[in-house]
């Protein structure tokens, strides 16, 4: 085990997986010569050649569309979208083809494409460098979605995605690329999709989170120390969802606050709340609360901290629920 930054763990994963399977290739804007604008793909072009770490034309739909064809030729393409909001041009290919092509072939062909992108705010960037688009992905049939919150999971979930027979979208918390350091297993390391992680055990209230909202929720749990014993559940994978872990925690604490950076309306937190409202109604000792981004464009960065879920907001929601 070595300590690595989150983005280094991703880079490590690429080196291992490209070495392990010669069908894996990486493609995207600036992933080759520059090693990615966040350096997630650094060193791959030199080591594996320009055909396995490809600088593509500036065309996200073209990237994902050719990836579909590459799958048909036996490749396992890993497509980088340079930023969250720049993945939107590829949504059409994602919804109409990536999520449907296996089905269309009667299960005859596989489309093991991985789509990864930095996501989320808090980095003082110009507009459209801060989105949390997981809802668009998770709502789409045929698509799996995972979001790591630690360096180890950043490596393990990406490896799982690359090896998975189905298309997987990985959102990486860019805020933590270089601010979060942690132990990362050397060599092959796979974190299975669909298994949540109990980031912190507690008995009074559960904070359900994923990605960059996990460290925030842990900080909120700290802030509540003394007042309440707070459990933090890191979903890790949104689809498949670890319903068992979710329901177990809800049954244990009876109080759930879901923390999500994306805009609230029909975001993934709503799905979590809906699952609880359907399957945990007798366990709940109060309302299911959501702390989320708002139904507005991600703001000018000087006031982005007001938009992003904060420790204050999570604590406020938790107290409200504890007092219910």
């Amino acid at each position, binding site marked *: 085990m070595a300590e690595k930054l989150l983005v280094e763990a991703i880079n490590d994963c690429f080196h291992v997986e490209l070495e392990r399977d010669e069908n894996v290739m990486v493609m995207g804007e600036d992933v080759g010569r520059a090693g990615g604008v966040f350096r997630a793909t650094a060193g791959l072009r030199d080591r594996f050649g320009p055909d396995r770490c490809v600088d593509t*034309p500036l065309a996200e*739909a073209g990237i994902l569309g050719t990836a579909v*064809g590459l799958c048909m030729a036996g490749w396992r393409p890993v497509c980088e979208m340079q930023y969250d909001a720049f993945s939107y041009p590829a949504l*059409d290919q994602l919804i*109409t083809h990536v999520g449907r*092509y296996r089905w269309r072939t009667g299960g*005859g062909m596989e489309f093991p494409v991985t789509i990864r992108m930095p996501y989320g705010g808090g980095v003082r960037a110009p507009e459209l460098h801060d989105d949390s688009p997981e809802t668009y992905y998770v709502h789409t049939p*045929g698509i799996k979605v995972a979001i790591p919150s630690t360096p180890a999971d950043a490596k393990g979930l990406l490896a799982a995605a690359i090896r998975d027979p189905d298309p997987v979208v990985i959102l990486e918390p860019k805020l933590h690329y270089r601010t979060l350091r942690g132990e990362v297993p050397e060599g092959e390391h796979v974190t299975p999709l669909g298994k949540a992680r109990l980031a912190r055990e507690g008995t009074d209230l559960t904070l359900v989170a994923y990605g960059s909202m996990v460290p925030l929720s842990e900080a909120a749990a700290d802030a509540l120390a003394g007042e309440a014993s707070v459990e933090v559940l890191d979903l890790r994978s949104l689809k498949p969802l670890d319903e068992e872990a979710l329901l177990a925690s809800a049954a244990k604490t009876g109080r759930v606050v879901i923390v999500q950076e994306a805009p609230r309306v029909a975001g993934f937190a709503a799905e979590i709340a809906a699952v609880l409202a359907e399957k945990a109604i007798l366990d709940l000792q109060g309302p299911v609360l959501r702390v989320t981004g708002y139904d507005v464009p991600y703001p000018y960065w000087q006031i982005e901290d007001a938009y992003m879920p904060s420790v204050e907001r999570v604590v406020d929601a938790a107290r409200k629920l504890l007092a219910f």
Partner: protein
Amino acid sequence: MAQIAAAEHELRRVIGDAEGLGDREVEGLSEGDLLALYRDMILLRTYDERSVVYHRQGRIGTYAIYWNHEAMQAGAAYALADDDWIFPSYRESAIGLLRGLPAATILSWWRGHPSGWWNPADYNVASICVPIATQVPHAAGLAWGKRLRGEDACALVFFGDGATSEGAFHEGANFAAVMQAPVVLLCNNNQWAISTPVSAQTRAETLADKAAGYGMPGVRVDGLDVLAVYEATREAVERARAGEGPTFVEALSYRAAPHATADDPTAYIDLERVEEERTRECVGRYEGYLRRLGVLTDEQAEQIKAEAADVMREGIKAAESEPPADIGLVFEHAYADPPPQLAEDLAELRRILGGSVG
């Protein structure tokens, strides 16, 4: 960047007029080839004409008619090797027939039955692409991917005149050129996108003029001339196999039938023009050529048509005798490794519907 000649604006032709004025021959095509091409066209034509009837009889659903497009479909496909891939749009739904795909399968597709879906790898024919132009990058990716593996295969992708307005066409064509992918971009310029004439689709003088923008050769052929399409595609395939990248082929034709069975073109089309175009349709033109060459006898023509009719008779019988699809298929094939919820959903649905659905 490559030095590319301006697109040929001349329409390439092999077949002359009704009197044979302008007839020429395509080098390397034997009489057997000429007859095989005829058989392909008749099979496609028969499929199309029967399908319109089947639709009227309520035996298949909405159907995209390709009458008068057989020359470009058969001609282009004939220029391929078996390892080469075809990426059809809905307009080329039956092109798999030329690769051994059963008529019943394609008919089942239009019948909305799960048996209408095939494994593309079995025929090197991709799934029918319904959204316009989105198959272009697929073809580019497949061709590029094959080349990266050192395989010899090319791809042929069909799309319409309207499709050239879509970003997906543009991005796919550009990727193909940049990666020097061995792919032939076959643009079916039938001059209509449903009710929109090609003059409202682009101001380009010809669609082939788009090729220069991608640094690839652009050629124009008479899309009603099966041999011209064959010849142009063969040249494009040769270039592709030689590592010289993609070619844009504009095959000019005319949509002398409704867009699909659901469409009523009387509101927007000049019916006299359509009638005139129907007299110039592509199967008859090729038949005339073959007869002038003395390659096709009446008996052969009869027999080929009878065989095609048989294929369709048996095809629709087989399609109609497919057992009703089990509702379990709603949940199958979307994922290789499905989220657990799907099994729960199916169990619940079976409990409620008792296995059948009305």
